[in-house]
C-alpha cells in the first residue's frame, strides 16, 4: 500500500496559523482543512507506533477530536502540526502501553486479512506491494519485512523516536516538543533507539553493512 505521503507539511506556517485562528473563532470547516492536510502523516505515525490499522484509525480520529477540544488552549508557541503530533503520539503510546502488544511479523504467519485491516502476514504484505516479482523486488520486500518486524520489537518510546526522526523527518527540537522532553534527551534517545533497532536487525539476520540477504 505504498502511497505518496509527503514528509513535509503541505501548508505554510502562516496558513496553518490562519486556519487555527479561524477554528478558535468557531469555524469548524477550517478545522476540516487542517484534518485533510495532516491526516496522512498523523495516521502513518500512529500506525507505525501501534501497528494496527484499525486502532490507528480510531486513535487518529481521537487525536483530531482531542486537538479540537483543546484548541482554545493552543497558544501558538509551537506549530499546530507539532502540537497535534504530540497529542497523537501520546495517544498511540498510551494505547500501546494498555494493549501491551508486541506484534512481530513472521513470514510463516498465515492469517486471512480480507481487507478488514487486521495485521497482514508478511507474505500478504509482500504480495500487496504489487510489484512484479523479480528476484530483487522480492528481496527488497523481504528486507522491509524484517525492518518492520525489528521496529515492532523495540520499545515503544524508541520506536516513536525513530518514526518521528527517520520517517517523519522531524528535527530534534520538534521531536522534543512532541514528546515534551529536552533536546539533549532526544539526542541520546535517538542514538539508543537506533542502537536497539540495529541490534534487533542483527538478531534476525539482517546484515546492515553487507546487505546480504539471509535465507530462512
Amino acid at each position, binding site marked *: *500500500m*505504498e*502511497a505518496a*505521503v509527503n514528509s513535509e507539511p503541505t501548508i505554510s506556517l502562516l496558513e496553518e496559523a490562519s486556519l487555527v485562528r479561524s477554528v478558535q473563532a*468557531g469555524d*469548524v470547516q477550517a*478545522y*476540516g482543512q487542517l*484534518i*485533510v492536510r495532516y*491526516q*496522512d502523516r*498523523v*495516521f*502513518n505515525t500512529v*500506525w*507505525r507506533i501501534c501497528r494496527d*490499522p*484499525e486502532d490507528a*484509525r480510531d486513535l*487518529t*480520529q481521537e487525536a*483530531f*477530536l482531542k486537538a*479540537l*477540544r483543546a*484548541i482554545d488552549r493552543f497558544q501558538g508557541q509551537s506549530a499546530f502540526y507539532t502540537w497535534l503530533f504530540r497529542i497523537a503520539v501520546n495517544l498511540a503510546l498510551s*494505547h500501546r502501553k*494498555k*494493549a501491551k502488544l508486541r506484534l512481530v511479523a513472521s513470514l510463516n504467519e498465515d*492469517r486471512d486479512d*480480507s481487507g*478488514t*485491516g*487486521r*495485521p497482514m502476514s508478511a507474505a500478504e504484505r509482500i504480495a500487496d*506491494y504489487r510489484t512484479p516479482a523479480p528476484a530483487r523486488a522480492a528481496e527488497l520486500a523481504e*528486507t*522491509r519485512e524484517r*525492518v*518492520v518486524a525489528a*521496529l515492532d520489537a523495540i520499545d515503544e518510546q524508541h520506536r516513536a523516536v*525513530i518514526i518521528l*526522526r*527517520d*520517517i517523519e523527518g522531524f*528535527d*530534534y527540537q520538534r521531536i522534543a516538543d512532541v514528546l515534551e522532553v529536552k533536546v539533549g534527551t532526544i*539526542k541520546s534517545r*535517538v*542514538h539508543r533507539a*537506533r*542502537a536497539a*533497532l*540495529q541490534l534487533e*536487525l542483527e538478531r534476525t539476520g*539482517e546484515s*546492515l*553493512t553487507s*546487505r546480504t540477504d539471509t535465507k530462512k
Partner: protein
Amino acid sequence: MMRHDPEKLAEQLSAFLDGELDEMERARIEEVLRSNPAARDKLASIRDTVELVRGLPRRPAPHDLAGAVMGTIERSDLLGDKSDAPIHARPGWRTARSLLLTAALLAVTVTVGLWSMRTTRDHGEPQSLVTGPSAVDGSRETFTEIATEVALPAAPAAKLDADAADSRAEPIKLAKADMPSETDRGFAREREEHQAFDDVAAKIRGAPEPATTDSLASTRTSGAMIIERLATAAPTDESGALEKKERHSQTVIAKTAPPIRLEITCADADDLRWCRTRLTRFLADQREHSRSPTEKAVEELTGVRFENNARVTPLGDMEIHADLTDRQVHRLLGIFDAAPAARREVALSVGDAVSAHGWSQTQQLLAMLPVRQVPSQAARGQPAIEGWPAAQAPGKDHNYRKDAQVAQRRGRGGGAPPPGFREQPSLGAIDTVIPQSTIQPTRRVHIRLTAPKTPTPPPGPPGRLVPDLTKDPQNP
C-alpha cells in the same frame, strides 16, 4: 590520540548524521572520522539503519477519516455534547443549538405522519422537516441552513451484493424483546413512554427557555423511545391508545418472530477483534443502506440513533443486539464463514426452540428460516419450514402477540425439528406473519462475540436473552 567514549561517540555520530551538532562539535567529529576507520564504519552502519527505516512504505489515512471526524464534530456540536467543548459553548452555536433542539422535538411529533411515507422514496432535504409546524418563527432559515451543513459521516465502502437491493428497500425496525415473560413489564414501559412523550409535548408548548443538556438527554431518550415504539407498533396494549395510532399507520409489523441468539467463540484476541470489526461494519452498512432519508435526518437532528446497543467488555468481548432480516443474518454468517479461523466456533439458537452448533448445522438451520414471506404466501397457507406450522393470513385487527403466547402455551409445533438439532420444549411458531405489508420482517438478533481466556470452553446454553445494554465502547 584522543580517547573517545564509544557510547558517547556513537551518539555524536548519530546527531552528526542528522545535522544536529553545532559547529564546534561537527568539526570535532569530522576530525575523528578522518583519523578513525572504526568511527567511519560506525557512521556507515547508522546510515544504513536510517536508510532501511526511510525505505518503509507509508500508509495513507483511510479515505473516510476526515469525513468521520467532521461528522462527529458536527453531530456532537448540534447536541451540545459538553465533552466536545469549547466549540458548542460559543454564543452563536448556543443559539443555533437551542433552535435546533426545539425543531428536533417538533420533528418527533411529525414523524408519525412522515413514517407512513417511508415506503416512498423521500429525497427531500432535511429542510422538509422544517415545513411542519414550527414553534419558532423566523428560525426556519437558520435551522435549514444549519441542517444542510450537517454532514452524514461518509458511509463505509460496502460491498453490495444482489441482496443489497432488498436491504435498501426495507428499513430496519427496532423491536422490543417481546417474550411472554416480559409482557407485563413491556406494557408498563409503554405507558411510561407515552407519559414521557406527553410531558415532553407539554414542555414544548409551555417552556420558553431552550432545553438544558440534562433535559435534552432525557428528552432525547424519551423521544427515542417514542420513535422506537411507534416504529415497531406492537399489537394492542391494555389502554388501547397504541392500537389507535397503529390503525393510522401503514407499517404495522408483527413481532412474533422468535429472536435469534448467535454466539461466536473466536480463536483468540486477534480473531475477536477481527470479528468485532467486521460485525460493527456489517451492522453499520446495513443500517446505512436501510435508513430512509427522513430517518437519517431525524437521527442527525436529534442525535437519537435508531440502532442497536452494543457493549464491549474490558476483555474485548462484545454483546450486541440488532433487528435483522433473516437474509441479513445469512449474510452475516457468510462473512464469518468466508474467512474462518480454525478454532472459531459458532452456536445459533432460534427462540428457545432449536439450536445448532458448528458452522454446518448453523447454515442448515438458517437455510430453513423464512427468507421472505408475503401476504399471498401466507394466505395460501404455505409452511415456512417443512413440517412446521403454516403461516396464517391475519385479519386487520389480529392480535399477533396473543397468537404467539397461545402457540407457546400449547407447544404447537408441526413436527420434529430436522435431525441433528437439539430440541427444546415448548416449540413456538417460528414463522413470521406479515400483515398488510411486503416489507421483509426483522427479528431481534442477539450476537455475542467472545474469545477464550482459558482453554476453549464449550458453548453456553442457548435461549437466554441479553438485556438491553448501554453502549460502552472500551479498548480491549
